[in-house]
């Protein structure tokens, strides 16, 4: 071993619609969650790490061993890497039973058949598929297939585990259980883990590190707490569910790029460009204008009303445009029709400002 344990990767490559340039470090036993819009390059990152896509530049080092280094013409083939990849589209072997699918990685690495099957059966049991060992993938439901794919990746106990949206097709009960199972497993495994997900809950529950990829590059990374506290892009703000506003600090106020101004409590950068976050619950809305002009109050048109379970999210097109959460009870009272006008108001204390 010639370097620290875990994964240190710097990935550069090009596809038709993507030019990827991203660096990633994951220590053993830790989990990096990869988030980002569709087509950002998350799956591409995993494929490159697994050795299924050649790098154009950069390098991949795992536990001190160079897996990929185009400059030095080093390239360890996929099967020689201690890596397991759970594919977004599962790619189960249609001609093998579920159990044989799960045992495939163990058998490939030379484990005796009986042992491999026993281990595979345990792994299937862990993801709640004990009764489906003999089924072919074609006769399984979507969620069952996803669990087979997960068991197939987990059972190989790799040094680098790559999971591409592993929980997307699971029902809520199973999702909670498996998330919990994954959490224990990833912690105790001592492998470096990379998890792609669209669900903030997964990232918060499982990851030590959140990495947001947009358009092939890393937009933001940090612990889940850091990232959710200070979103740097529209995508992250949507993920966290807050209003993100861009502007310039002007004394105790921030002058917004898209027009308008917000008074803040201070505490952010003293000058220059800044980002401001306003939680939707902190945006108070009403049908009437405040009786006398007030700071942080402005009118906007309702462009969308979304039911969000126990609250209703209203999208206001104004200067600035914001989303506001209101209680279901308020919906009728406010006559929330799209196109109608509402007034929004934010207390300066609810505006968090930070440098971009």
């Amino acid at each position, binding site marked *: 071993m010639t370097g620290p344990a875990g994964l240190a990767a710097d990935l550069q490559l090009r596809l038709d619609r993507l030019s990827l340039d991203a660096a990633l470090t994951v220590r053993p036993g830790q989990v990096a969650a990869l988030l980002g819009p569709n087509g950002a390059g998350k799956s591409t990152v995993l494929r490159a790490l697994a*050795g299924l896509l050649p790098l154009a530049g950069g390098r991949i080092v795992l536990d001190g061993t160079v897996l990929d280094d185009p400059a030095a013409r080093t390239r360890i*083939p996929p*099967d020689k890497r201690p*890596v397991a990849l759970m594919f977004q589209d599962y790619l189960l*072997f*249609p001609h093998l039973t579920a159990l044989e699918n799960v045992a495939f990685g163990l058998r490939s690495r030379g484990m005796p058949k009986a042992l491999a099957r026993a281990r595979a059966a345990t792994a299937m049991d862990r993801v709640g598929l004990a009764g489906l060992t003999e089924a072919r993938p*074609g006769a399984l439901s979507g969620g069952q297939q996803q669990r087979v794919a997960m068991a*197939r990746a987990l059972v190989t106990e790799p040094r680098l585990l790559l999971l591409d949206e592993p929980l997307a097709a699971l029902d809520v009960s199973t999702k909670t259980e498996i998330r919990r199972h994954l959490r224990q497993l990833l912690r105790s495994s001592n492998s470096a883990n990379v998890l792609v997900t669209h669900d903030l809950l997964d990232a918060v529950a499982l990851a030590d590190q959140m990495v947001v990829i947009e358009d092939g590059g890393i937009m933001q990374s940090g612990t889940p707490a850091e990232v959710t506290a200070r979103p740097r892009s529209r995508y992250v703000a949507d993920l966290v569910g807050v209003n993100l506003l861009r502007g310039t600090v002007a004394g105790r106020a921030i002058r917004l790029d898209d027009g308008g101004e917000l008074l803040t409590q201070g505490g952010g950068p003293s000058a220059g460009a800044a980002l401001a976050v306003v939680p939707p619950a902190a945006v108070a809305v009403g049908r009437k204008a405040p009786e006398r002009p007030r700071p942080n109050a402005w009118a906007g048109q309702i462009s969308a009303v979304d039911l969000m379970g126990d609250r209703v999210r209203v999208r206001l097109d104004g200067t600035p445009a914001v989303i506001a959460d209101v209680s279901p009870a308020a919906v009728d009272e406010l006559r929330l029709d799209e196109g109608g006008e509402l007034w929004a108001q934010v207390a300066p204390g609810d505006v968090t400002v930070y440098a971009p």
Partner: protein
Amino acid sequence: MRSSRQPVNLVVLCLAAITALFFIFPLTGLIFRTPWSSMGSVITSKTSTDALRLSLIASLSTTALALCFGFPLAWLLARGRFPGKTLLRGLCTLPMVLPPVVGGIALLLAYGRRGLIGEPLNHAFGISLPFSLPGVIVAEAFVAMPFFVITLESGLRSMNTKLEDAARSLGASRWTVFRRVTLPLIWPSLAAGGVLTWSRALGEFGATITFAGNLPGVTQTAPLAIYVSQSSNMLPEAIGLSLVLVLVSLTVMIVTRDRSST
């Protein structure tokens, strides 16, 4: 899953039936003309048993050779990227177009005693293919292997290669991937290619007689024995032996098919 719809409609059924009958009538004709009384002696005559034995040995060896050598070529044609691939594919399919007798002459020109390759081969190792069983196999391989290559290539081209990637990422070496993923997935093409090659080799006549000659017990395969019978006005014997050949191949096909597919 697919039981949802009636799998075959009426027009298809009619056309298929016509085609099947088109194949079956001539065979029926042969069966009617078979000299059943003398079949016993036809089957047990030394010439016939020798010929059938040689036919089986040669055609199976050809199929085995197609597996060993035709497979890599099909692989290259399906997955390699190099200039002149279309030309190479065309060249390798030409033995199918060549009338077999000319194919045999071409083989003589290349691998005969005075041939391009045959002459040095003969000088260096004393190997001479014509008039020998290996010669029969070479002739059959020349004629029949292209069927394997072309069929397999099409199978390799239409398979989902992502599954191979998945297998690699699970630690399977190229060889394991090939054995446990690629092979099962292209199995229908492989079986079809095998059947085509084997059948074509089993029925091969022109190239064999031209390249390997016709010596009972040495190079006389069943089609050669049949031809000799037929051209000496022993049509019943020819038909009888043909029918045996047909039965043997039918049996082999049904047995292997039942064992290998669902």
